C-alpha cells in the first residue's frame, strides 16, 4: 500500500478506526484497541491480529510510524507495563490520508442526504 493510493482509495473500516485513534495522540496497540472501542461506543471491536496486520500495512505505507519519544508528563501517566510497549504515531502522510478519507465520507453523506431529500419530495 502506497501513500498515494491510500489517499485516493477508500480506507477499510479497521484502517480508518486506527488512524482516527492515533489522530488523538501516540498510543500503543492496546491503547488503540481501547480508543477504537470508546470511539465507536463499543460497536466496533478490534482484535490484536487485525490491529497489527493493519498497523504493519500502514507502517509499510508510511502512514504510521514508531513513536520514539514522549513528553515527561505523558511518560508519568504510563504504568510500568505500558512503558515497555511500542507506541505508534500518525505521520504527515497519515494525517493527509485521514483528512482525504474524511472529505470523501463527507461527500458521501452529502450525496446521501440529497438523494434522501429527493426521494422524500418525490413521494410527497
Amino acid at each position, binding site marked *: 500500500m502506497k501513500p498515494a493510493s491510500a489517499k485516493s482509495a477508500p480506507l477499510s473500516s479497521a484502517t480508518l478506526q486506527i488512524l482516527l485513534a492515533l489522530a488523538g495522540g501516540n498510543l*500503543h*496497540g*492496546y491503547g488503540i*484497541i481501547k480508543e477504537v472501542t470508546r470511539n465507536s461506543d463499543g460497536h466496533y*471491536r478490534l*482484535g*490484536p*491480529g*487485525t490491529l*497489527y*496486520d493493519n*498497523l*504493519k500495512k500502514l507502517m*509499510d505505507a508510511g502512514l504510521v510510524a514508531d513513536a520514539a519519544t514522549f513528553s515527561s508528563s505523558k511518560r508519568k501517566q504510563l504504568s510500568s*507495563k505500558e512503558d515497555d*510497549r*511500542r507506541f505508534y504515531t500518525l505521520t504527515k502522510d497519515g494525517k493527509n490520508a485521514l483528512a482525504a478519507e474524511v472529505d470523501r465520507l463527507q461527500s458521501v453523506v452529502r450525496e446521501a442526504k440529497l438523494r434522501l431529500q429527493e426521494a422524500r419530495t418525490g413521494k410527497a
Partner: protein
Amino acid sequence: MNSMGARLAYRLLLRLHPASFQHEFGADMLWIFDEEQQQGSTVYLFFDGVRSLVRQRCRPQKDPGQLSIASGTIITSPGIGMFRLFQGGLLCLAIFLSLGQILRHPNPFSPSIKWSNRMSCYTITLQAPSHAEVVLNPLP
C-alpha cells in the same frame, strides 16, 4: 479451557504466524491477550488470531529474508521460514550435483591457440560443446 490453557493455545497460534510478524508484534499481541483475559471473554481473540494467521500466510512476503553463512553457521533473519530454507537446500543440492557432474568428466573444451598472419593476432578456439572464438589484441 482455563486461563493458562487459553494463553498456551494463543501462544501456539502466534507461533504459527510468519516469523517476521511474530518477532515484530508477537509480544504485544500476547500482552493484549493477557489484558483482555482479565477483562473477560477471549473467544473473539482466537477468531481474530486465526483470521490474522490466514491473512499473513496467504499474503506474499515482500521481504524474503536474509541468509548469511559465517563460520559454517547459517544465520537467518526472522523473516526467513522453513520453506525458504528448504528451497535454499534444494538449490545448494542442485549446484553441488552439477559441479560433481562437471568435475567427473574431462574438460569439455579443447582450446587451440593459433597465430593468424592475415589478422596479425592470436586466435583462441574453443571446440565442443559449441564453437567459440576469442580474438586477442595484436601483440606489440
